[in-house]
């Protein structure tokens, strides 16, 4: 089961999908594109506390975090 975590005002919203389910993957990819288009940054969690920014949808990513656009504080 793969998870897309979207940071939002309520904390985070999680969308889970089965990578073997083509329809679910298509839906997840559409969500990915929509969020990236809205200014979110997608990061894939790697082992050992590392992460990698995703420029395109990765159906193999077990956990993808979507971070809203950053701004100076």
């Amino acid at each position, binding site marked *: 089961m793969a998870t897309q975590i979207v940071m939002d005002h309520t*904390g985070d919203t999680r969308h889970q999908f089965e990578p073997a389910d083509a329809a679910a993957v298509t839906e997840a990819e559409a969500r990915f594109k929509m969020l990236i288009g809205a200014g979110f*940054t997608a*990061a894939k969690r790697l082992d050992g506390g590392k*992460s990698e920014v995703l420029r395109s949808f990765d159906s193999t990513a077990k956990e993808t975090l979507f971070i809203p656009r950053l*701004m100076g504080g």
Partner: protein
Amino acid sequence: MMFGFSTQSRRPSGSQPRRALGFREEYRGHLGSEEPGQNLLLQWLSPDQVEQYDLCLYFDVVGSATGTRYRIRRGTALNIEQLAADGCVTRRWCFAPEGTFRTGDIMLAQKIALETFELDALAIANHDGPRGGFPHRQPDGLPRREGQAGRRHIDESCWLVLAFACFGTVVWLFYNIVF
């Protein structure tokens, strides 16, 4: 813009006015519990970072482009410290996701940004300048020595003036007694 709603801290905050604390609690109540944000943050930290965060309420990250070490303190405003090789703070940075988020979410966004797209993040971040007016800290989290030195300097000046006054009084008394 400052992310002024500073975060929960385990440090004593006796000097803070009750009204401010009340407002903070009210605001935090509006946001809801910090726990989900902290749990998410802990899942994304490395084991070393988890240990450090558990002990000190901060964790260190290494910038992806420059290799610079940053310390992300639990907080939401100017909570990123750029560290020199000796561990002293050289600058404080501030950036966060647009909007209102839980402390853990903000810290996680800061960690990922510095570890994966450091220069882009710093390009939009604000900082206090290399010699900003914010109290610098030593690696152990205590106020830096220069602040203490400044205070000591004032104290020493007072003692010096007092010593001169005493010396003058003694000389004057001696002069009056002898002559």
